[in-house]
């Protein structure tokens, strides 16, 4: 049962599952703040929506890595050896774990930045920049995951 394919699929699952769950949590935190602003002032919908969407990128990165791991499995053929399988599992972890935490924390910054928009719509860009600071680490994580997948096989 514990052959290479098992570990590789597990890696793909973790990459998406962790990053996706983190994004869901991050977007929900930001979304609650966004709906609070819209409840008071409907004109601010567009600016808070952009901020709310920012923590969703980690889920997309997880999706990309899960896809790449599975593509790699196809490339390496059906009988994947255990070493390659474990290597693909480990390659999925950076975006899985870093993606999950960075999405949740980014959601908190996004919610706080929505507070800036609540005060002044014109300061939306400042809020976006502050929120994107957290994104950097998710980008590093997906790059490392991609590099690691490239070294397998």
């Amino acid at each position, binding site marked *: 049962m514990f052959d290479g394919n098992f570990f590789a699929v597990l890696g793909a699952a973790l990459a998406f599952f962790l990053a996706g769950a983190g994004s869901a949590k991050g977007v929900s*935190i*930001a979304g*609650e*703040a*966004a*709906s*609070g*602003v819209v*409840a*008071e*002032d409907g004109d*601010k919908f567009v600016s808070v929506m952009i901020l709310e969407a920012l923590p969703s990128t980690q889920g997309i990165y997880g999706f990309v890595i899960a896809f790449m791991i599975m593509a790699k499995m196809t490339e390496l053929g059906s009988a994947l050896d255990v070493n390659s399988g474990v290597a693909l599992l480990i390659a999925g972890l950076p975006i899985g774990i870093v993606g999950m935490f960075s999405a949740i924390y980014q959601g*908190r910054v996004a*919610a*706080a930045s*929505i*507070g800036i928009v*609540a*005060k002044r719509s014109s300061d939306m860009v400042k809020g976006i920049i502050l929120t994107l600071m957290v994104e950097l680490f998710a980008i590093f994580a997906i790059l490392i995951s991609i590099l690691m997948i490239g070294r397998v096989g």
Partner: protein
Amino acid sequence: MLPETRYAYAVARVRVAELNMLGKGRIERMIEADTAASALRVLNEAGYAESDDYEFILKKAASDLYAYMKEISPEPGIFDIFAYRYDSHNIKVLLKAEFAGTDGEGLFADNGVIDLNSLALMVRERDVRRLPPEFASALTDSIDAYSRTRDPQIIDIIMDGAYYVLFKRLAEAAGSSYLSELAAMTIDIANINAFIRIKARMVDLDLLSRVLIKGGGIPVKRYTGSFGRDIAGFREEIKGSGYGRLLDMIIENPSGLTEFEKACDNHIMDYLRKFRFRAFGIEPLVGYMLGKETDIKNARIILVGKINRINGDVIRERLRNGYV
């Protein structure tokens, strides 16, 4: 307490609502207004009801405030901690009215937790079972103390003390260190006020120990122990508690009780303002609510001043610091 991120929605709403608070700009425009009517227009712009009757506008703003806080908060019950103050006030009015043989009409506050009619019934029937325990025993104590002293002020002292104790207990039960600290600070300030007033009138130590409320950051025995010394000695006794600056005011100007009271309110406001920019948690909500109450208080001072044609600088001196 719920996890603080559950407050994201409410905090965002308060963030927008803060735009309608009375900042320095609006306050100045109200003071500089030629007539009370044009000062009222500033209030209308800030989302207050439209009417010529300023009492109506301010009362409506105060009662809308509690409904609003309860509507947006994920834990509406927390705000009862503050609303019980009005129940304590209503019990006082009911008791005094009963003893004076009047009906107290027009003196009641409508933001209490307990419905006013049932509260009136409970007080009349002396049925304290459904009251919070602090109020239940305070009600009995007030009736007892009044029948001995015939001094209605004793009711105020007992009921105020009961509210503070209730505030502290509920704040601690809520498991929020912020609320507990706020409660302790409120008690400390009430105690320091009592200490200074009773000392100034050179009344006996007995009264002081009856008025002092337990649960503040400064233990009660610090006050009673310093009763024989002067205010500077008391300041030395409570060194490091953060109230030194307030006491300095009284030491420099022993008759400036009005200024001192204002400084006490500002001291609590400074604490609330420290948490204003939190993105989560109950802190910005409590800050908004108490800040809005200060706004209403300030608006009343300005409008009364305008109606009585009081000089702008005199009005300014009386105003409390605002939240925004």
